[in-house]
């Protein structure tokens, strides 16, 4: 097969699969699953092939929107180091999650719909990864939003799931609006929407620094929404209403990383922009990283803990984009995070299935002897997440924190503090769920999940442990060499041990309820409540106003008003209709008289 076709096959195979499943197999659960898994495996295979043979790296374009001299948007693929790594991550994890889903979704009535949406998601995500221009990326960016909406609302009969889907969509719209404006500003300035074109032309044109700052920050708005950074993070925890594999693939490993990937893609532009852009990005990442960690410490829903953890880790990546001189630093953390966070979510899904769809950690407990394999995997994922030496997170997180140390002392301490929080909430999760006594009959009778779910877990666990080793990562990234300051190692190790000790102290004795209560954290700083209030008051008020305007000004004055004017004029004029012949004759005579006068004498 022609290697030039590989990227196109990778991109469009999932779309074909989605169509196939929806059109031909809408009732065939098993067949839909087979088609979905086979497609994911095919894209995975080709992605690895493209990755292992860099000489296959081609860029190809099909002209699409072409207004000569004004505007040219091709549908094009770009295969460079960045996109090839991302391809491998996305397709590998997608394949494992597709397989795992076959076990998790057993007995669900909407399996074909589920797999079709997953394939659609895979198509859109690969589109983002392969896009060589902003317009194409934006299109797939929105497609990712659509598939996310469909998948969050998979249990659409549940109001909370439908609402969460809507919220995810709407909150992303806020960020995407800024993203679109940013794209347009960059296009206006450089005359190109191609990433390469923007980078080349940016050095050629002289721009007011404020213009470039505004453009970059508006583009960063896209990351705010898609990667759930403060203050647009509220949708991600609520998106946990979707099936757990979806949370794992979309809302932990790949889709939410698209924002970071986009920043990495335009990294040269960010470097060329004034310093203040990267400062803003750094502070947003640092604040998100720490605040989400605080919120995670007081959540009771196993998936929500992991969701806030994801937000926190995405904050790390955003900090990594801002502080490091190369984009590979953030991409490295994205890479390791994708594996261990996916693993953690799949473990959580395994637990949830075992305790009959219970997600409250205070109804679990004592699962370690009952499902040892899951516990083992979860421990591996946790150690990777908290950055235990020897696990993947250790390498990637330390690198980011080290650069933060070099860039800004305050941000260094914030990220180190977030590491303490990470350690605390993850070991809290472990102790409450797996340690001590079961807190309910479901937990007591929990059993290890079937092989179709545990095999992906084990594979991911291996990846989560090994992905960070320099021997592995050197194949994927060109990481800068340099001595990491001892204070960074020391601070992170102290944070890890401190968090572990605190969690052990509080939760190792298996209390029935949480001994620590911080309503501020449990209620996520009341940000959700603030948005509720804002929507209820601001938007509700606006709706009342526009309804009034529509009812009285549009309907009343313009529509009914016009009709009433005609009616009233007619009402007045009909009194001229006297029925008296001589009155008509009089009007007629007077009219003729006037007409003749004007005709003859004027």
């Amino acid at each position, binding site marked *: 097969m022609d290697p030039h076709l590989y990227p196109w096959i990778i991109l469009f195979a999932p779309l074909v699969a989605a169509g196939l499943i929806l059109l031909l197999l809408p009732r065939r659960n098993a067949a839909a699953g087979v088609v979905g898994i086979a497609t994911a495996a095919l894209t995975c295979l080709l992605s690895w092939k493209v990755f292992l043979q860099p000489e296959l790296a081609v860029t190809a374009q099909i002209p699409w929107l072409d207004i000569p001299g004004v505007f040219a948007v091709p549908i094009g693929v770009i295969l460079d180091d960045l996109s090839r790594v991302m391809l491998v991550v996305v397709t590998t994890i997608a394949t494992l999650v597709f397989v795992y889903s076959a076990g998790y979704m057993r007995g669900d009535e909407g399996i074909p719909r589920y797999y079709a949406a997953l394939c659609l998601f895979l198509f859109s995500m690969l589109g983002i990864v392969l896009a060589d221009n902003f317009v194409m990326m934006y299109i797939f960016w929105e497609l990712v939003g659509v598939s996310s909406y469909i998948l969050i609302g998979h249990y659409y009969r549940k109001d909370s799931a439908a609402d969460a889907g809507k919220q995810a969509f709407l909150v992303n719209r806020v960020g995407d609006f800024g993203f679109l404006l940013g794209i347009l500003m960059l296009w206006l300035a450089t005359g190109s929407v191609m990433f390469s074109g923007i980078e080349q032309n940016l050095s050629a044109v002289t721009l007011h620094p404020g213009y470039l700052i505004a453009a970059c920050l508006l583009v960063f708005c896209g990351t705010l929404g898609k990667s759930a950074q403060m203050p647009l993070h509220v949708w991600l925890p609520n998106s946990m209403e979707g099936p757990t594999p979806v949370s794992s693939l979309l809302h932990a490993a790949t889709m939410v990383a698209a924002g970071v990937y986009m920043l990495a893609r335009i990294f040269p532009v960010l470097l060329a922009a004034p310093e203040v852009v990267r400062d803003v990005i750094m502070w947003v990442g640092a604040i998100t990283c720490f605040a989400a960690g605080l919120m995670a410490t007081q959540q009771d829903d196993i998936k929500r803990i992991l969701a806030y953890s994801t937000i926190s880790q995405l904050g790390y990546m955003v900090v990594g984009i801002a502080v490091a001189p190369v984009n590979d630093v953030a991409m490295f953390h994205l890479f390791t995070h994708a594996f261990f966070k996916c693993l953690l979510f799949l473990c959580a899904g395994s637990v949830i299935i075992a305790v009959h769809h219970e997600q409250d950690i205070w109804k679990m407990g004592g699962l370690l002897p009952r499902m040892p394999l899951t516990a083992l995997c979860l421990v591996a994922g946790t150690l990777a997440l908290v950055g235990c030496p020897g696990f993947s997170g250790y390498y990637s997180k330390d690198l980011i924190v080290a650069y933060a140390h070099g860039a800004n002392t305050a941000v260094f301490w914030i990220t180190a503090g977030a590491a303490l929080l990470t350690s605390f909430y993850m070991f809290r999760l472990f102790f409450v769920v797996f340690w001590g006594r079961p807190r309910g009959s479901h937990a007591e009778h929990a059993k290890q999940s079937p092989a179709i779910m545990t095999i992906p877990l084990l594979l991911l666990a291996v990846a989560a442990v090994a992905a960070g080793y320099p021997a592995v990562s050197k194949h994927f990234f060109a990481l800068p060499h340099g001595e990491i300051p001892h204070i960074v190692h020391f601070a992170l190790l102290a944070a890890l041990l401190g968090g572990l000790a605190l969690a052990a102290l509080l939760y190792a004795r298996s209390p029935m309820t949480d001994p620590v209560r911080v309503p501020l954290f449990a209620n996520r700083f009341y940000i959700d409540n603030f948005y509720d209030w804002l929507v209820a008051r601001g938007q509700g008020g606006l709706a009342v106003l526009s309804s009034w305007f529509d009812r009285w000004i549009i309907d009343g004055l313009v529509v009914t008003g016009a009709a009433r004017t005609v009616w009233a004029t007619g009402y007045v004029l009909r009194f001229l209709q006297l029925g008296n012949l*001589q*009155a008509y004759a*009089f009007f007629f*005579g*007077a009219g003729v*008289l006037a007409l*003749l*006068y004007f005709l*003859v*004498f004027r």
Partner: protein
Amino acid sequence: MLNILFWVLSVLMLGSAAAVVLFRNPVNSAMSLVLSFLALAALYVTLDAFFIGIIQVLVYAGAVMVLFLFIIMLLDLKAEARRRLNVAALGGGLAVLAGFILLVVQVVKSLPAARLPFPPLAGADHSDVAEVGRALFSNFNLPFQVIGVLLLVSTVGVVILSRRSLR
């Protein structure tokens, strides 16, 4: 001579026309109308329009007026009872009338050709009827046919209208 004849005929015609409007009894009005039409026919003759004058006598003073009198007799119309005068209608009508007379006088005064005497005719050896007939059957043949159809249609219409049950 012609001058005196013109003025006598004009005054006769206008006087009898005014009598048509002024008489209270419709029969008297109709008789005045006959007189007015006859005077008008004579005026046509003073304009060397002999054929039109004769047609005027035959059709108007003859046929049309007979029809009028017949209908007046048929409906057995008496003199109108005096009614309360509609002052507004009377005032409005008189105003329009005054305006119209003024307008006519103004038009006639401002027309330069109106002061010239009529140009002389070539001679008295031409046949008036023949000339009208020639014009009628050469230049106006199609309108002539159409008028014929119109008369037919109006005849049929009158027959329909005169039937007892109009519903």
